[in-house]
């Protein structure tokens, strides 16, 4: 987090007392004057200009205020893309503390602690206590955090950050207090998913270490509120969850997970069951994200996996019937655990990786599923994230690209043998884009093309490498369809520019092997090059609480016919239907489901890939509990002209092609080579 960088430039909050009694909170007298909790070990009300400072592009100034809660000043903080840290000089002993502060304005905040040795860190996000004042103050507090004040280089700080880094925010803060609460708990080791429950309540096993997870989730509601939260979200899921087929297959499982919340004994258990419910809906638009972004793996793995054809390593271990071969697509420069491009991942904790990963649906916040059960590219892309957090060992087959051969035996790597890295030195990992090589010049070496929202999009267009000028085959590599309707949008402009270049082409290769979706108008920029106008389906947002979708195909067709005039027409009368267009897909969701769905069947369009797209045809609504827990729920399905609903039915490639291990070792991209061969046969 960038706001940590400025630490040390700020005045430290001072220690005023040391105690170990249960926490209370600051209080108000009958006239509304505030007093700090007498047990607080740190109190601060920003009464001097020593609190003025900057952190990156954020800044703060202690200024006089008529509504100061304590003293005469408040800390006024301008938050931009960087957060703002306030250093805390914690007591020298070991203790457990809860941070409280009062704020005017809307921002995220919390307490973070780490140490000079780098491997231990804790973050606890602040959530409202419910107390508010008539002059606009809102009290926030974190969950308790264990702090080892005896350790070297204790770095404890309160932090503030804007909800949306793109939207600068100004807030005022006053009456900060750090109050003893609970008992100190030191580091403990654990194994895998902690089936032995070595970590205990409020903690989860990640990468072999028990981590305090209380601050990653909202607080535990009181008993009466718990019942209300469960009832509320059962109703909301029933009312709003849109994919019709999944309503029949996964909704009941999600509701059962919600029911388990009622008996939870701590906030981690309670909200983990909520996130489990969201995951069990098994929809790519439906996911939950606790405040885990600060939780860096101790043993990062800078390698990407995808489904392939392990043709070069059958001697080491044969493929398993009904399960995919999994290969290393590419790696970063370091933290590869000895893996190289073309190596094969055979097992995780002794099981096939897909079998192992699917068991994580009940437990791992890093796991989520696509709508189409046959779409496994998503789980392949998640593997590196869940392995480093939940696995004990991986079993691989190493290969030698220089010889084009693989070992005739497997190698098991214990995660405990991998050297830990300092959390502050956690590397930026390569993107897992399912592209082992690039067929157009200018693609980023780190495989990160950006999604066009959080990261600027990179879109690469040009003549396909290893083709002749006479062939005139143009290629496009991109990940996002998030351009909107503005002609000034950089994604829209880049795709418009690419399509302009296609006007002179005799063949086109569209590489969308990592497709994050976006919006229909942007998808239509490309569709309009290849297809005449038509309405491929209607979008059907759930608007009635008792809507369970068309009763049969005939009823669905009636709906399509009734509403098709209100839906998008894709394609163009100016389409170049004589130019062959190869569309490469692998990990494609939402609008990136639309793209292959609508392109497929075009006179000169052919889809190439290992399996179906995710099958999430629709849109979503997102929710946020004060930035501590965020989740999204898919609210839409689509209905085809024949009346079938589309969610759960990903788009199958016309040509099923999986990267060959032998090709990877030889530096060849099986999918590109196959698609290019077809384009060449179809050149006008």
């Amino acid at each position: 987090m960038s706001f940590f960088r400025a630490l040390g430039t700020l005045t430290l909050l001072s220690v005023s007392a040391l105690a170990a009694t249960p926490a209370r909170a600051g209080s108000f007298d009958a006239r509304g004057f505030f007093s700090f909790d007498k047990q607080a070990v740190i109190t601060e009300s920003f009464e001097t200009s020593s609190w003025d400072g900057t952190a990156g592009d954020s800044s703060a100034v202690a200024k006089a205020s008529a509504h100061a809660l304590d003293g005469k000043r408040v800390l006024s903080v301008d938050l931009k893309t960087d957060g703002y840290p306030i250093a805390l000089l914690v007591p020298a002993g070991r203790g457990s503390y809860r941070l409280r502060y009062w704020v005017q304005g809307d921002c995220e905040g919390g307490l973070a602690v780490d140490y000079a040795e780098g491997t231990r860190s804790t973050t606890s996000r602040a959530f409202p206590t419910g107390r508010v004042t008539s002059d606009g103050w809102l009290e926030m507090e974190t969950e308790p955090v264990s702090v080892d004040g005896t350790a070297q280089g204790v770095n404890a700080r309160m932090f503030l950050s804007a909800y949306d880094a793109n939207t600068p925010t100004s807030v005022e803060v006053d009456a900060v207090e750090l109050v003893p609460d609970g008992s100190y708990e030191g580091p403990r080791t654990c194994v895998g998913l902690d089936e032995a429950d070595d970590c205990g309540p409020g903690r989860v096993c990640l990468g072999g270490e028990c981590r305090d997870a209380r601050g990653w989730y909202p607080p535990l509601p009181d008993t009466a509120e718990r019942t209300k939260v469960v009832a509320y979200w059962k109703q909301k899921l029933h009312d709003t969850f849109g994919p019709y087929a999944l309503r029949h297959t996964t909704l009941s499982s999600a509701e059962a997970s919600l029911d388990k919340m009622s008996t939870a004994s701590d906030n981690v258990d309670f909200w983990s069951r909520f996130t489990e419910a969201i995951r069990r809906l098994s929809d790519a638009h439906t996911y939950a994200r606790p405040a885990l972004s600060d939780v860096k793996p101790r043993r990062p793995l800078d390698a990407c996996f995808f489904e392939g054809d392990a043709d070069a390593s059958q001697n080491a271990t044969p493929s398993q019937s009904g399960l995919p071969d999994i290969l290393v697509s590419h790696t970063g420069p370091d933290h590869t655990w000895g893996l190289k491009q073309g190596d094969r991942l055979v097992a995780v904790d002794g099981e096939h990786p897909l079998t192992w990963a699917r068991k994580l649906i009940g437990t791992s916040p890093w796991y989520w599923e696509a709508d189409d059960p046959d779409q496994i590219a998503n789980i392949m892309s998640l593997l590196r994230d869940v392995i480093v957090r939940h696995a004990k060992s991986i079993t691989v087959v190493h290969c030698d690209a220089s010889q084009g051969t693989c070992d005739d035996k497997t190698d098991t790597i214990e995660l405990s043998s991998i050297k830990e890295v300092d959390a502050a030195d956690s590397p930026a990992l390569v993107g897992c884009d399912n592209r082992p090589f690039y067929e157009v010049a200018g693609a980023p070496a780190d495989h990160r093309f950006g999604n066009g929202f959080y990261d600027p999009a990179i879109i690469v267009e040009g003549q396909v490498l290893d083709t002749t000028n006479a062939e005139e085959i143009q290629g496009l590599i991109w990940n996002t369809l998030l351009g909107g309707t503005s002609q000034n949008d950089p994604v829209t402009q880049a795709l418009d520019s690419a399509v302009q270049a296609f006007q002179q082409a005799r063949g086109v290769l569209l590489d969308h092997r990592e497709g994050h979706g976006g919006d229909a108008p942007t998808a239509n920029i490309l569709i309009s090059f290849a297809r005449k106008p038509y309405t491929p389906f209607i979008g059907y947002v759930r608007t009635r609480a008792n809507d369970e979708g068309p009763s049969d195909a005939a009823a669905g067709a009636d709906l399509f016919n009734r509403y098709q005039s209100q839906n998008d027409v894709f394609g163009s009368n100016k389409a170049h239907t004589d130019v062959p267009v190869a569309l490469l897909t692998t990990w494609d969701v939402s609008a990136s489901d639309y793209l292959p769905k609508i392109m497929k069947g075009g006179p000169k369009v052919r889809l190439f890939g290992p399996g179906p797209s995710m099958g999430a045809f629709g849109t979503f609504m997102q929710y946020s509990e004060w930035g501590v827990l965020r989740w999204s729920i898919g609210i839409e399905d689509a209905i085809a002209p024949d009346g079938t609903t589309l969610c759960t039915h990903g788009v199958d490639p016309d040509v099923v092609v999986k990267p060959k291990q032998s090709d990877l070792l030889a530096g060849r991209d099986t999918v590109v080579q196959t698609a290019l061969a077809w384009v060449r046969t179809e050149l006008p």
Partner: protein
Amino acid sequence: MKHSSMSRTPIFCCLPALLLALLVGACGSEETPTNAVIPAATDAGSGDAATTDATPDAEQPPVEAGPPVRTVETRPRFGTLDPGNLLLDGDFELSGPDALQYPWFQFTAANVALGMQCHSGLRCAHLEPGELIAGVFMWPDGPVEAGFYARIQGKSCDS
């Protein structure tokens, strides 16, 4: 970098017209109902059992007499949680403007109001004259009743 704004094309798909609950920051029409909005804090929740701290903490020392400088309330921090409210987020508690799209359209960080000025829970909406936000709700089998709490800040609708 892009801003999250609900004026954008709905993400991933076209969203049909389901903007069934509208709050418009305007007034002056003779047809304006008595609870129309206004530069105001609005909240479609059904109200909370907020607790006002009317008595000093028992451990507090005696205080000098004088007018109160502020009052303090304790609100339900998860909102009203009424399953019967058909709006996706009638309380505004979950519509943090930190996402691509959420249940209130045209609702930006500038519209967020917090704390005691809200009728229920801890979050609500502030609208300037002429501003509009639209909420999404589910149609039940029968007719619906729509209502919300609002108050005008300033002396008139135009100020």
